[in-house]
């Protein structure tokens, strides 16, 4: 395993659809991130940011090219192996919090830990610990509907970190938040990621949080611009 590169993308293309309606969203992307690096991915709407993030997250398969997560070639993975790869390598933070409305904050996190093989008691303890870390010690039993937007996104961050996957991917995590909360949750994400060595890729056009990235990568029309 090549531990030098956590995320390694070489000459990746992605074409949606086929025939007359085919659209090539990524046209030969090269991208990499070191272990523990906090990378901002930015670019105009429709440039392919979400597409690239979905491929890194083993949600979509690339049309061609190489994608490695900690040295494992995931570009050749079969469709049915993708869920397992996601559990193994990736934590997600979505634009909307995407928590399950019927579960409490603790349960939303513990549920994912259970899928990752934790037993119930440890999963609950770990969920509480993660909620403590995002400053929600008093919201263990609250459902998403009882939380503010910023609080929900903090639960979502705690869930992304659950079990300590090596790669955290966030697609516009601040888009639904005001400036203050947007900055706050990005700071929390960065702090916790740095503390434990997560590699983070944050898609954003929010220039108020750019300064928190170790590096800003720009993508335009399906291609990464030279840094």
């Amino acid at each position, binding site marked *: 395993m090549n531990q030098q590169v956590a995320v390694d993308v070489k000459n990746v293309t992605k074409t949606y659809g086929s025939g007359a309606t085919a659209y090539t969203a990524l046209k030969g992307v090269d991208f990499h991130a070191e272990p523990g690096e906090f990378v901002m991915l930015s670019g105009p709407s429709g440039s392919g940011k979400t597409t690239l993030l979905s491929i890194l997250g083993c949600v*979509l398969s690339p049309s061609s090219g190489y994608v490695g997560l900690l040295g494992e070639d995931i570009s050749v993975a079969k469709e049915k192996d993708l869920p397992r790869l996601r559990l193994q390598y990736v934590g997600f933070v979505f634009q909307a919090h995407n928590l399950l409305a019927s*579960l409490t904050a603790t349960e939303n996190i513990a549920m994912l830990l259970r*899928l990752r*093989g*934790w037993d119930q008691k440890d999963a609950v303890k770990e969920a509480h610990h993660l909620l403590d870390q995002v400053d929600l010690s008093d919201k263990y039993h609250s459902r998403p509907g009882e939380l503010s937007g910023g609080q929900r996104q903090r639960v979502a961050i705690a*869930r992304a970190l659950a079990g300590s*996957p090596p790669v955290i991917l966030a697609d516009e995590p601040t888009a639904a938040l005001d400036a203050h909360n947007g900055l706050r949750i990005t700071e929390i994400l960065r702090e916790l990621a740095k503390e*434990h060595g997560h590699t983070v890729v944050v898609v954003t056009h929010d220039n108020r949080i750019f300064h928190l990235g170790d590096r800003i990568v720009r993508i335009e029309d399906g291609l990464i611009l030279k840094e």
Partner: protein
Amino acid sequence: MSAVVPLPAPRQRRPAGPINTRATFRMRFSTMAVVGLRMMFHDKLKMFGTLAGVIFATVLSNQQAGTFLGLIYKNVMFVENAGADVWIVPANTETIQAGKLVSDSNLMAAKVTPGVAEAAPILFGNAVMSLPGGGSQPVTLVGAKAPWVLGGPWNIVQGERELLGRPDTMFFEDSDREYLGNLNLRSVRELNGHNVVAGGFTWGLLPFGPSYAFADFDLARSLLRVDNDQLHFVLVKVAPGADPKDVRSRLQAALTDVKVMTRAEYKSSIVRYVLTKTPIGITFGTSTLFGLVVGLVIVSLSMFSAVVDNVREFGTLKAIGATNTDLAKLLFVQSVTYAVMGTLVGLFLVTRLAEGIRSAKLALQLIPELFIGTSVLMIGLCVFASTLALLRLRKVEPAMVFR
């Protein structure tokens, strides 16, 4: 599933790295069960809608099946309660109705057949009662020999069995008293042109045709104008320890021109007759099926719409690593829960309903087998109904959650 790598002590979160622990089948199942139940109870309106489907199917199918069994019971009640282990009936008999006669030599022969403890003849025919206010009503006349146990009245609510020994005295059906022109104890009525007196009453002895009326064998003989050496059926009680099937075979071998059946055989013959030679089976079968189909459609559609409503949550579950199989487990637990809850409520309601409408004329037969069958059927129905939702779930793209 793969070996479980020891986990770090909680509290001290482990450093980031590939997660090599995997959930076992049981862990995934219980996790999905909890999520499924939480989702189900979160949307109470939809839950009650789905339950309504199960309850509807349970109530309607049990009400229909219970009525059907009630009608079946009406057809077999005489054979069930006449006290005979073995029946000697005219050849080609399939059901119980007034019909051909057999010779009394069969009775003599039966009495001396090994394994027979007791054999008694009965007469079974239609009689017409003239009513005081004019008009007439039919009854099903049964003539039995003293002490009137084999083929005599049962469920007696007024009078003593022994009163049948008095001249021209008969038992009639209590719930038909009004219908028989306000018949009371000691009322005198003309039956087939002969005056008889009401000596007692039974309750609930209403077969498919006219209600049963009981008379002594000799009275019945003159009312029905049957020859001295003829009778309708011979009822046989087997000796203690004798197997009715053996006795039946022995009798059948010894007698000609008659059919010999054990009580169970006669009952199944009647049930077969009702199912194949009358429209009852089709009628009730169709309406029971209708109840089940409507239930199936309601449950299918409401589970499907629950998936559509929560498609984003299901997409999220998939995005973070749940498989189609996991989501199938979730739906399975939901559908079994719907089935169990709905069946319990439905069976409770149908039991209350049955109590409410119980009468001598119609009693729903809600037997344990029906309840067990319903529960199993409803679980099958709900699991089957969830396949529509599952087909929709399989189509959910995890990539959708980024849009």
